[in-house]
């Protein structure tokens, strides 16, 4: 129930002009919002089959009844004229927009034909990439069944640095797999948080934190949104958060304000690291004959680090029984970060943050953690069987997201933030950052990625996007050449956990590492705002070989709307809207769990499509059956699943484990593990389209070492064993990659990549300037340029919406007033923005609350003329712009090697590394580059000049 102030309004006054009790509608259905990726619960009121009103579901664990500016505008997304209305087949050249409408039967025949030929010859020649796809547990599985390693969704250009940084360090992560303890935190430190991720939970949380009088500090180059209501805004220079974090580490160590007991119990701080410079075991953990890591016990010497009665020594080089030398992880970290290079005075200028501020923040978080512990009278039992009478928290909560992630140093920056949390003992304690179930998971969580040995008509076994432990798990051939088209899990991006969608088309255009036949995409606007360089993507999609055939022979695209990418595909499979289909927010993917327990959710159709469109997941399942993918057909070759809901209920990934964890078993009473329940979806609907397990209070904290929690999670099939999840300050998988780069082991990086792998696969967090900055004149390109996400628009998902586009119809380039005035600029003046690879033209707006060396704009407001159902005179196309046009997808080539403009560990697209120069512009008041107007699809609805939306019930 919303916690708003309940009014005391007795009875309505007599007023002949007012009907007080008009029913809201004639029906109301629960489902899950998809106006952004946050997965809030909504209730959709209907009248005569049309939408009357969309409200937040008060019972839903994600949003608890509230709903954001986007979610409240869902009506206009549903009824937007930009909706595609029938399957389309290209009849002109790519980009011409000349399509004809075809039947679904014909569309499925064509798609099946192209895909079958690929599967029968070389399945790798299918590149199947989806966008902000919430059905990845299906799409990824389908790709593996097809037999191609070339699958991913949008994570590679969004948040893989946060996922990888977290999952390889603490066994959870910011946002998806963790959350701040908004109910208890006394100090919240937020880094680089885009305003559209986890938005309602964060907003609810901020209101609680502020009501409680806890301090809220926002570190962000721009003071909008959350930063605007922070107690303190730290306008850091983009890409230097890692340096800031490591200076905090330095200060905490220097002043000895660390939770050494937490480190000894819950992290690998005590584990012994072999010191053997030049040796093949240098930097690996010293282990006993059973492979168990060793620690140095004060009385007994080298012993199993997991022993309950360990009294560890954290400083000092020791001699192992076999004669090798080893030091505890803690010593390695203390030695590194006590170095003066990490002192606040040494980093202040680069961060754009005074040294005194860094010292003060360190002192403040230490004071809260150690002098103001949060003590709950809640007993719990640890993995050593000891019951603690109380749960003691370090109430400093961190949250970080896109502003950390979208830099080429983001992986290490994320690890650096987790290191600060570990030093404070502020992981999964009352008041700190907490795991969202089903996390924590083992570090790293799972088996290595599938993708080796692709061959015709043969599925790949396992998950395509999974977790390498070392060089042997990389997807490279014997020469070190990538096996995937995007080069994820290769030496260029060894922890490319989410794939690298941003390199797929560029690599395919260069036949590097091999040509592809069919590019199959779902809801990814790669010819516009989802590409780092849209013009280059368009060039490749329209590029032809000498024989006149397209370089990428087939492009299949599924979307619900006429985006900028549609005209560049050959076959369009029109999708339904989020209110017209089933979906599954699956525990096999990224569910809606919270610190209070695991959970998942569904979407159900709340209205029927009025067009010849089909839910993409239904289409994919049918394609799977037509192609004979084993998991999608029965023994007799007939389709195994009727449609997506049938799959959601009846698919079993392993015995008893399906897409949904709730209401399993014949009678619906099992959770996690259980046979399929034919009434499962109905049970979800009755429960508001979500399911949530509530952890008992003794299982809610210290889950990484909480025996009752681990036992319960294992019983539900969430984790493979009940072992303590030991937090990894020193990352052995990274050291294994580094050792390979130094010439050890069978799998080693190619010569051109050795130095890079050795440098960036550091087992402790490091900071380095964004890679993009290394090869250019930072005096000439004197400004960092980034985007922020408006709270009322999600990427390109809002411009077709008649209400949202009135809020954000054209964007400006925001710059510090001091900088702008020095250039003689005032608001709405036109400027050129040049980078090393491109130039754009836009309007400026001067402001105070921005780091003076940074310019920024709202993301994805600029639209190509003709797209999204807008006329070509729309401000989105005339004055709107994308920074994407001056971002390169590649770093400058070095010695013949063309590296992606990405994090060298994870492959995360480094959008925010951009450097630009701003100068006054002349000429007509139109943003540049200005692309030709897209031709609308056949039978696009006439655009109305007056919209009078009204769905009224009678009293």
């Amino acid at each position, binding site marked *: 129930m919303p*916690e708003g102030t309940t009014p005391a309004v007795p009875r309505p*006054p007599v007023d002949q002009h007012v009907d007080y009790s008009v029913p809201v509608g004639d029906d109301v259905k629960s489902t899950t919002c998809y106006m952004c990726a946050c997965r809030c619960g909504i209730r959709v009121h209907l009248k005569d089959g049309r939408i009357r009103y969309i409200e937040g579901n008060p019972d839903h664990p994600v949003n608890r009844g509230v709903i*954001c500016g986007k979610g409240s505008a869902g009506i206009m997304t549903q009824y937007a004229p930009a909706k595609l209305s029938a399957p389309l087949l290209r009849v002109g050249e790519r980009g011409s927009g000349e399509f004809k409408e075809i039947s679904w039967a014909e569309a499925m025949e064509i798609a099946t034909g192209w895909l079958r030929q690929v599967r029968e010859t070389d399945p790798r020649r299918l590149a199947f990439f989806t966008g902000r796809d919430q059905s990845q547990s299906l799409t990824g599985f389908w790709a593996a069944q097809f037999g191609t390693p070339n699958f991913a969704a949008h994570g590679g250009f969004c948040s893989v640095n946060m996922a990888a940084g977290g999952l390889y360090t603490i066994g959870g992560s910011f946002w998806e797999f963790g959350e701040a303890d908004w109910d208890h935190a006394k100090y919240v430190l937020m880094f680089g948080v885009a305003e559209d991720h986890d938005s309602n939970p964060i907003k609810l949380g901020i209101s609680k934190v502020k009501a409680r009088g806890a301090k809220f500090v926002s570190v962000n180059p721009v003071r909008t949104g959350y930063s605007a209501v922070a107690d303190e805004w730290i306008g850091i220079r983009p890409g230097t958060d890692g340096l800031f974090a490591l200076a905090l580490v330095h200060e905490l160590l220097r002043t000895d304000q660390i939770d050494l007991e937490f480190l000894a119990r819950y992290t690998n701080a005590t584990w012994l690291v072999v010191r053997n410079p030049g040796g093949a075991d240098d930097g690996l953990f010293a282990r006993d004959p059973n492979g168990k890591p060793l620690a140095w016990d004060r009385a007994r010497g080298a012993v199993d680090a997991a022993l309950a009665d360990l009294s560890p020594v954290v400083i000092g080089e020791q001699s192992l029984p076999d004669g090798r030398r080893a030091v505890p992880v803690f010593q390695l970290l203390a030695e590194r970060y006590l170095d003066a290079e990490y002192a606040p005075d040494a980093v202040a200028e680069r961060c754009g943050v005074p040294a005194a501020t860094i010292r003060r923040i360190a002192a403040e978080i230490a004071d809260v953690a150690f002098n103001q512990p949060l003590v709950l009278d809640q007993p719990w039992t640890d993995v050593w069987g000891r019951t603690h009478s109380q749960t003691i928290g370090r109430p400093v909560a961190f949250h970080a997201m896109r502003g950390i992630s979208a830099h080429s140093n983001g992986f290490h920056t994320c690890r650096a933030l987790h290191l600060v949390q570990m030093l404070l003992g502020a992981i999964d304690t009352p008041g700190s950052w907490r795991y969202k179930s089903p996390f924590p998971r083992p570090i790293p969580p799972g088996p290595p990625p599938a993708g080796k040995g692709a061959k015709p008509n043969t599925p790949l076994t396992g998950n395509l996007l999974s977790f390498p432990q070392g060089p042997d798990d990389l997807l490279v051939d014997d020469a070190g050449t990538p096996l995937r088209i995007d080069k994820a899990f290769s030496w260029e991006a060894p922890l490319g956990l989410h794939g690298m969608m941003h390199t797929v088309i560029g690599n395919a255009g260069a036949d590097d590492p091999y040509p592809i036949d069919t590019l199959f995409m779902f809801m990814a606007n790669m010819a516009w705002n989802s590409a780092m360089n849209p013009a280059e993507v368009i060039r490749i999609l329209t590029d032809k070989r000498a024989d006149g055939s397209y370089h990428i022979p087939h492009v299949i695209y599924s979307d619900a709307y006429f985006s900028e990418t549609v005209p560049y595909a050959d076959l369009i499979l029109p999708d339904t809207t989020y209110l017209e289909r089933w979906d599954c927010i699956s525990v096999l993917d990224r569910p809606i769990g919270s610190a209070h327990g695991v959970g998942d959710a569904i979407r159900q159709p709340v209205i029927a499509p009025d067009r010849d469109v089909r839910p993409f997941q239904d289409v994919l399942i049918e394609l799977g059956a037509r192609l004979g993918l084993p998991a999608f057909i029965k023994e007799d070759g007939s389709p195994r699943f009727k449609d997506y809901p049938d799959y959601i209920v009846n698919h079993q990934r392993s015995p008893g484990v399906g897409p949904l964890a709730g209401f399993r078993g014949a009678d619906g009473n099992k959770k996690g593990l259980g046979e399929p329940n034919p009434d499962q979806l109905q049970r979800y609907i009755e429960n508001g389209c979500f399911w949530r397990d509530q952890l008992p209070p003794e299982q809610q904290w210290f889950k990484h070492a909480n025996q009752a929690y681990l036992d319960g999670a294992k019983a539900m099939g969430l984790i493979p064993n009940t072992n303590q999840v030991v937090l990894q300050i020193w990352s052995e998988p990274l050291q294994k990659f580094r050792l390979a780069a130094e010439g050890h082991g069978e799998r080693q990086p190619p010569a051109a990549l050795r130095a890079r792998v050795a440098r960036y696969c550091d087992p402790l967090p490091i900071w380095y300037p964004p890679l993009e900055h290394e090869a250019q004149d930072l005096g000439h390109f004197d400004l960092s340029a980034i985007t922020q996400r408006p709270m*009322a628009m999600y990427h390109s998902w809002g411009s077709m919406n008649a209400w949202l586009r*009135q809020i954000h119809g054209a964007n400006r380039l925001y710059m510090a007033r001091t900088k702008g005035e020095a250039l003689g600029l005032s608001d709405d003046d036109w400027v050129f923005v040049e980078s090393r690879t491109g130039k754009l033209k836009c309007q400026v707006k001067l402001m105070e609350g921005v780091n003076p060396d940074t310019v920024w704009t709202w993301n994805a407001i600029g639209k190509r003329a003709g797209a999204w159902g807008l006329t070509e005179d729309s*401000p989105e196309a005339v004055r709107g712009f994308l920074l994407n046009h001056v971002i390169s997808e590649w770093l400058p080539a070095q010695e013949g090697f063309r590296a992606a403009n990405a994090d060298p560990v994870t492959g995360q697209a480094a959008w925010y590394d951009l450097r630009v120069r701003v100068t006054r512009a002349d000429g007509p008041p139109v943003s540049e580059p200005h692309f030709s107007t897209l031709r609308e699809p056949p039978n696009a609805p006439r*655009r109305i000049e007056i919209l009078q939306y*009204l769905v009224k019930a009678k009293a």
Partner: protein
Amino acid sequence: MTCLPDRPPGAPALGLVIDLDTCVGCQACATSCKQWNASGHSGPLPDLHPYSAGAEGVWFNRVHSFEAGEGAAGRTVHFPRSCLHCETPDCVTVCPTGASYKRAEDGIVLVNHDACIGCGLCAWACPYGAREMDEVAGVMKKCTLCVDRIYNETIPEALRQPACVLACPTKARHFGDLADPQSAVSQLVADRGGQALMPDLGYRPVNRYLPPRQRQAESQPIEDQPTPLDIKNPLLRWMGRVLTR
């Protein structure tokens, strides 16, 4: 001209309390208002040129974002603006037809669309910019405090609140009787020093804005006191530390 009703002392004055301390400018109040009212008492709320240049619609609730003060010392302010349901509003008294009216019993200011001639005088009279002209119907429209929600017996009691209040993700909006000093909203105003907007103009707005809370103080700057770094080997302090599980 239209008369204001006789409002006995203590008569309910329904209105909103808006917390500028936690408003992050997300526009949830604006779009939730738009969707409720588009099909509500005053609907439709037309949008002109919805898919081309010059898109402009009727909104009862608009959020303005601006900066105050210079440099890092300044602040970014998100300011939601809607009808304040004044006790003595000129927007009512200027109305030549009686279409604009303030209700005696709960203080809500409404427009009788059947009597409105769209002359626009009320919009001129309102210094808060709270009036919205429906160019299609030729009548003036405005925030109704969701009069078709707050008394609506078909809606669960806890949800009989304006749409903007229910939607607000930072709980920055509150609805209630501001004439009742014991009401939760009045208490909130008292506790937080809630303020009327431009009271000098004399219209006695009912809605209140809660100013930003005092920011949490920065601790005193840390002097670079002698530190373990000055010890020859700072690692030594952890060497003898006895730790247990």
